[in-house]
């Protein structure tokens, strides 16, 4: 139980820092002065101190959505084994249910964006659903690759299978890894699909949906989206870099500390890599997004095929 709470609290605390680190790396790569690492926390504090301004015809849905978003992302963080595999929550839901939780959050966010009735909100919601329905099957295929290797649909047993078996290179995971990075970029509104720091309403996807939110609602949504990125990164670690995660039976105090250190190291490296990818690529036109995600889907399917042929 302590492990479970510790992991969730660590995820909630580290998620804004991870976003801040990516922003810092991007600033360095573009030779701008980098914002401080604590910038996301300051932003959250500022937003929590402000007064909420609600649109006149906002329904209850609009008001509860930030809490639903934040809650589902915290639940997802509780399921994903980021530092330990022996989690009470993780046994309740497997990776497919995890995708369902992400889908719930997406549906609520899109409905709330349409609730106010502004043009930008519904435009963003429609785009989000388009990207979402293309990214979901790709993510499922990526997960199937890992399921085939370990013979289980639960993320913790997947990690355990990796760390107990002999170290081996699986060709199908190279395909799945590339597909996963593409899905991560698309799902978290990163650059080839969406620009998180854009001020141009016509090109927005994620930002267009949250235009009407203010104060603590906006703070919760921002926090939830940084948690989503953190969760995706942790899924990636569990699937492709499971080293250092404290496994069942070997999760004393030191092992947990070591696992947390390994997690931070992986986050630092992957954040820098993400910033590099984002700086090197240009934003795609919205109608190129299906092509991008179709390629991700096909790569994941290819991974499955290669696994079946090579039998490794």
């Amino acid at each position, binding site marked *: 139980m302590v492990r479970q709470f510790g992991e969730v609290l660590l995820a909630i605390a580290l998620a804004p820092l991870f976003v801040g680190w990516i922003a810092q790396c991007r600033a360095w790569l573009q030779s701008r002065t980098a914002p401080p690492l604590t910038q996301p926390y300051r932003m959250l504090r500022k937003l929590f101190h402000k007064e909420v301004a609600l649109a006149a015809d906002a329904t209850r849905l609009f008001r509860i959505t930030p809490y639903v978003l934040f809650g589902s992302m915290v639940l997802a963080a509780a399921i994903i084994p980021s530092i330990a595999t022996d989690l009470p929550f993780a046994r309740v839901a497997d990776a497919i249910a995890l995708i369902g939780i992400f889908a719930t959050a997406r549906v609520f966010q899109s409905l709330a964006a349409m609730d106010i009735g502004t043009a930008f909100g519904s435009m963003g919601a429609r785009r989000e659903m388009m990207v979402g329905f293309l990214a979901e099957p790709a993510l499922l295929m990526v997960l199937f690759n890992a399921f085939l290797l370990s013979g289980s649909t639960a993320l913790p047993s997947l990690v355990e299978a990796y760390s107990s078996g002999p170290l081996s290179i699986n060709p199908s995971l190279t395909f799945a890894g590339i597909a996963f990075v593409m899905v991560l970029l698309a799902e978290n509104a990163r650059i080839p699909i969406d620009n998180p720091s854009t001020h141009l309403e016509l090109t927005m996807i994620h930002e267009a949906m949250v235009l009407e939110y203010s104060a603590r609602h906006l703070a919760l949504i921002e926090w939830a989206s940084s948690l989503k990125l953190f969760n995706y990164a942790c899924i990636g670690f569990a699937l492709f870099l499971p080293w250092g995660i404290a496994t069942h039976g070997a999760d004393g105090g030191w092992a947990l500390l070591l696992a947390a250190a390994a997690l931070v190291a992986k986050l630092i490296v992957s954040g820098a890599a993400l910033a590099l990818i984002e700086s090197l690529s240009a934003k795609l036109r919205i109608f190129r997004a299906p092509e991008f995600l179709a390629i991700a889907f096909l790569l994941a399917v290819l991974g499955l095929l*290669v696994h079946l042929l090579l039998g490794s």
Partner: protein
Amino acid sequence: MMMHQSHWIVELLNLLASILLLISFAMLSRRRTQRLITLYAWQGLVLFASTCLVAYSSGQKELYYSAALTLLLKVIVLPWVLYRLIRDLGAQWDNELLVNIPTTMLVGLALVIFAFGLAQPISMMANTITRNTLGIALAVILLSFLMMITRRKAVTQVIGFLAMENGLFFAATSATYGMPMVIELGIALDLLVAVFILGIFFFQIREQFDSLDLHHLESLKED
């Protein structure tokens, strides 16, 4: 110990084979000719690595020569010649597709399944350590075919042709530990000459039609 080592080599070979397949798909999904040439060079490099690995594990000395030939010709000389060609032709960017990319990729996926099905009984009979990769080699050949069919420009069709030769070479090493040295030398020389002659063709085609679109070659008479 020996068993353990060969296990590692097989895994590494499988990885290289799947990277080769990945590069073939990347070629199908690229629009720019320049990128295609870079990918072709990468394919050559992976081929070089896998040939060296097969040579090391099987103890066949000739394979080292053909690996060196691969490195020299397919990674350095041919990409350089092609780069210069497209720069002189001003054809770095243009690349018109006959079919859009997702459809091409889907057809490519079907081809991979077909190739894997085709290779399964053949690789049952082979006794080399690389027999599993035969399906991937066949898939690379078929995907290069597909690239030649779906592209309209002459330069990309030549790159497809060269990538197909890469696939054939990989098939040869994975099925029978490589062809005799004389044949390999002959093929290498053929490739080099082919690229030079096709380079001359490019200039002729462009002079005749003001474009590298092979569509123009289909009409026999001038209207």
